[in-house]
């Protein structure tokens, strides 16, 4: 997938300014940058949840398999192809099972065996299965914050997305679980394109194949992980940011 000269304005505020990026298939693409640099806005354009904000103006293209997302009519089909995890965990007020089975059911899957398998696979992938396997009837909202975050990840995987977007997924999760999920991501990238927005520069370093650095609504630099974290990235700003000299 790719972004072509993407600009986003919220009223008078420029959130993204002419961002062009190519995200290679089946890899982990890290996006780093300070707060307010447009990282989340970028993700919201991919599944068009940007539409829910008021007074948004979009310019440019967001290409998924060559189709321009911004011109797409069938948003439901689009969103089913994209898994989205936002920083604050949201357990739906349903049982753990129903939380994960929600998207498949809404897409028309009713076969109990199929759902059972799907739910178990997704929960295992999100490193949550062992903690909830004996209490699938528990309300999703009653789980702890970290568990809810992994539930959110399981839900994002439940509709078998081709692209998985993670926005600061590790904020509410302890380091050990974060490591477990990171292992899963490395496994998943065989089948799924992963876009990882993170404030933890080291997380991007550990996981990403390519890294893009956003600052002030603009793309500063994009390159392979090795290049971005080397002694000689193209931009001085990148060097400073990844080493923590920035600001």
């Amino acid at each position, binding site marked *: 997938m790719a972004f072509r000269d993407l600009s986003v304005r919220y009223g008078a505020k420029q959130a993204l300014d002419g961002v062009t990026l190519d995200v290679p298939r089946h890899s982990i693409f890290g996006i780093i940058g300070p707060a307010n640099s447009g990282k989340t806005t970028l993700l919201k354009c991919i*599944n068009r*949840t940007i539409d*829910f904000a*008021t007074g948004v103006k979009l310019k440019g293209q967001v290409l998924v398999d060559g189709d321009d997302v911004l011109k797409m009519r069938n948003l*439901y*089909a*689009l*969103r*089913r192809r994209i898994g*989205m995890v*936002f920083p*604050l965990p*949201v*357990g*739906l*007020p*349903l049982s753990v099972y129903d939380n994960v089975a*929600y*998207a498949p059911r*809404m*897409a028309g899957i009713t076969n109990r065996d199929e759902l059972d398998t799907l739910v178990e696979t997704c929960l295992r992938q999100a490193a949550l299965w062992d903690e909830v396997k004996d209490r699938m009837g528990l*309300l999703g*909202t009653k789980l702890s914050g970290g568990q809810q975050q992994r539930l*959110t990840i399981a*839900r*994002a995987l*439940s*509709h078998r997305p081709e692209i998985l977007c993670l926005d600061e997924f590790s904020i509410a999760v302890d380091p050990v679980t974060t490591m477990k999920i990171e292992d899963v991501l490395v496994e998943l990238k065989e089948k799924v394109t992963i876009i990882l927005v993170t404030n933890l520069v080291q997380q991007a370093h550990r996981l990403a194949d390519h890294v893009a650095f956003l600052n002030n609504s603009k793309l500063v630099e994009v390159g392979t992980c090795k290049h971005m974290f080397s002694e000689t990235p193209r931009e001085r700003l990148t060097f400073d940011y990844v080493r923590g000299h920035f600001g």
Partner: protein
Amino acid sequence: MADAAALTAHGVTDEGNTRFAASDVERRKLLVERIAASILGLVTCSLVLPLVGIMAVLIVKAMPVLSWAFLTQNPQKYMTAGGIWAPLVGTFYLVVLSLAVAAPIGILAGVYLNEYAGDNWGTRIVNMAVVNLAGVPSIVHALFGVGAFVLFAGMGRSVMAASCTLAIMTLPVIISSTREALAAVPQSFREACWNMGASRWQTIRTIVLPNAISGILTGVILQVSRAAGETAPILFTGAVFYVATPETGLASSLPYGLWDRCMALSYHLFTITTQVTGVSEGLSYATAVVLIGLVISVNLISIGFRVYLRGRKRW
């Protein structure tokens, strides 16, 4: 002992401990605090007095008349004797019918306004209409009812016309309470569903409505007491002074048809207190007690319902 020693070590002793002694400013602050709390408390408690007073007077004066027979008999001897069965059933008819009209329309409109409508001038006009409709005096509703339902729609003065008028009156409140109940469901739930490719309606059906239904129903139930208590809207549209209703058989329990005129408790109370001579005081008071009892018990049901549902709140 060890504690005391530790405290002493930190310079805290019983005598000469000035660190926590109240200064003049603090003493005055405490005094004012106590006065403020008692005045506020007193005023709040005094709010209960009117209700208790009204109920006490009513019940004491109604006592001699109140009985099962009073509830189940029809008015007799030009309303100076007998019970209140016919008006009681009339009120029941009006409440049920008006809510049958207002609840579906109000709830559907509320869902649309809260879940679908964008922020545009069309929505703003509807919002303004709802707010202003809620502020229209009930007697104006009555006149509207005469024009729209009795005359224009050709319903004549009937249970149906009166119910429709009451429905128009309760509609804005049902819409507002529906919207409030829906707005109380966190936006993040909706976004989580949309992110998974669920449509708006799927989200509403599976997540939003199940979690808002308690609030919505509470709003509807509260309108029962309003519809039961109002006199003006039914005055010109369907309620009448007296209807001779069957005394026996099935027809006595369901005496009115949709196109008949009916008696109603609130209007009945008005007529026997001011329009008919020779009605014993007890009869009016007893009617008032039944009316108030009806309203209070409906409110209690709604409160109980709310408490029950809050107990199973899911987030």
